[in-house]
């Protein structure tokens, strides 16, 4: 039972990750490859707030969201004209820079040794020290995050963002402030993945830079591509699929070294098959051409 609750908690966390990335990739048309870095920023921010400053879980989660949003704004200011390939390169630079900070600022982040002893969440005096209580509390938090994304994507904000993705020139000629919208979408997505990072840190009790590497960013992007973009079903299906693959392989009782490579092979194969047969992903609306 606790094994399934563990999977449920991972699914909850990665649902927020994939749905927030979907806002950027699916709705704004911005290919972000630094999502794991923002995820890590949220994880480190909340962990340090809780362990060093004694801040409670919920304020620490809010702090993680603010950190993610603030960094995205800082990045957007010099890079607000970037689009297409240039945006990908810019986000790659952010991924590499943040990972280097997580890895090398040993005094603050613990460097390669990571941070341990992150306290279990306590909300309104209730300690969430069991998988059941944590999955229920995370369920509420995920519902709030997904609800917010649902409202945003169904609002004029989401419609305008979609217009910008389809044809920026036409959108601007209708009075839609394309650049501002992209900066705002970037901030919302980064804040939400920061929140997911805080949830992950509190659940794992230990974090180190390997959880926030470029490989992880590509895994997150794969969730969006596999599940599909442009709606909220896609990220759910994508997160579920990519969390399920290693768990299914676990039951195959393969040697560890082989299983890890087979997992990567399975991800790659899945992406290839989808790009060929179903470019819009398993449950998406928007086609990658």
């Amino acid at each position, binding site marked *: 039972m606790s094994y399934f609750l563990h999977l449920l908690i991972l699914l909850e966390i990665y649902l927020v990750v994939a749905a927030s990335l979907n806002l950027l990739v699916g709705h704004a048309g911005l290919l972000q490859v630094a999502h794991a870095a923002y995820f890590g920023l949220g994880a480190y921010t909340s962990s340090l707030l809780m362990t060093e400053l004694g801040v409670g879980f919920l304020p620490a989660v809010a702090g993680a969201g603010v950190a993610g949003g603030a960094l995205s704004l800082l990045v957007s200011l010099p890079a607000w004209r970037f689009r297409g390939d240039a945006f990908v390169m810019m986000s790659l630079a952010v991924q590499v820079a943040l990972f280097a900070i997580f890895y090398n600022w040993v005094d603050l982040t613990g460097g390669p040794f990571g941070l341990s002893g992150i306290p279990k969440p306590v909300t309104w005096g209730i300690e969430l020290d069991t998988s059941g209580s944590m999955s229920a509390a995370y369920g509420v938090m995920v519902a709030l995050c997904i609800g917010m994304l649902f409202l945003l994507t169904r609002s004029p904000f989401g419609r305008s963002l979609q217009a910008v993705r389809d*044809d920026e020139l*036409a959108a601007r000629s209708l009075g839609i402030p394309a650049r501002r919208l992209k900066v*705002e979408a970037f901030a919302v997505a980064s804040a939400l993945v920061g929140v997911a990072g805080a949830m992950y840190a509190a659940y794992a009790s230990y974090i180190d830079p390997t959880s926030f590497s470029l490989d992880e960013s590509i895994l997150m992007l794969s969730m969006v591509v596999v599940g599909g973009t442009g709606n909220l079903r896609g990220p759910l299906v994508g997160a579920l699929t990519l969390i399920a693959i290693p768990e299914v392989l676990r039951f195959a009782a393969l040697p560890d070294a082989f299983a890890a490579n087979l997992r990567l092979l399975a991800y790659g194969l899945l992406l290839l098959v989808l790009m060929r047969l179903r470019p819009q992903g398993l449950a998406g609306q928007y086609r990658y051409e």
Partner: protein
Amino acid sequence: MEAATTMEMALNEAARTRGAAASARAMLRDVKIAFGGQTVLDGVTFDLRPGELALLGGENGSGKTVLLNVLSGHLAPDRGSVELQFGERRVDAVRSSPERLARLGLGRLWQDIRLFPSMTVLDNVLAGTAGMLGQNPILAVLALPAVLRQERMARKRAHQNLATVGMADRAQSSCDMLSVGQMKRVAVARLLQMEASLLLLDEPLAGLDADAAEAFSHDLGRLCSKHGKTILVVEHRHDAISRFADRVWKLNHGRLEEIERSHV
């Protein structure tokens, strides 16, 4: 055709709900622009006054679309001034972004239409709605009742505008399933949704049959005479529009020539 002739009804409705649309004026002085050493616009000067309909002709590649790009803030000229007036407000189009000019009241119909292909017909029209609270992500979540109220009103107006262009029954269709003529009608509905006072129309009659083109031209004339819209139309099919036009211009090797109405 029926769709086009009912355009005026929609404008009457818009005028009732928003008050008279602000009049617009476009003034170009000595505008020059060159690409790779080749002069495209050479000292273009005109004053398009409020409520006037101007027809701009010229050979392919004579710079008609470039002129529209300059007027709509997409392209800065090498020399000269471009001044637009919306009501009492004067703006320098060279220093203004296209989105700012659109918010002030400049609407553009593109030669290649440029609908948003992944959106429905209705959403394409709704995308033209100005001043939506829900375009701000914070208000979209925190001021939900007001956002929903505004969205309902915008949807109602969008349905009216789609009915005006004869596309009411295609509101939920995907835009990439439409014919060129239908796409053009949706683009016109989007302009109506914007409630722009200065319209720049790039070959609006392309893809319309003779009757529809005639009716559309007639409505353009009424838009100017009765509703004070200022319109610049780039069109090869002079025959349909010229009799409703107040001014007829031709671009010839980058120079703007005014053609006497009697010679049209």
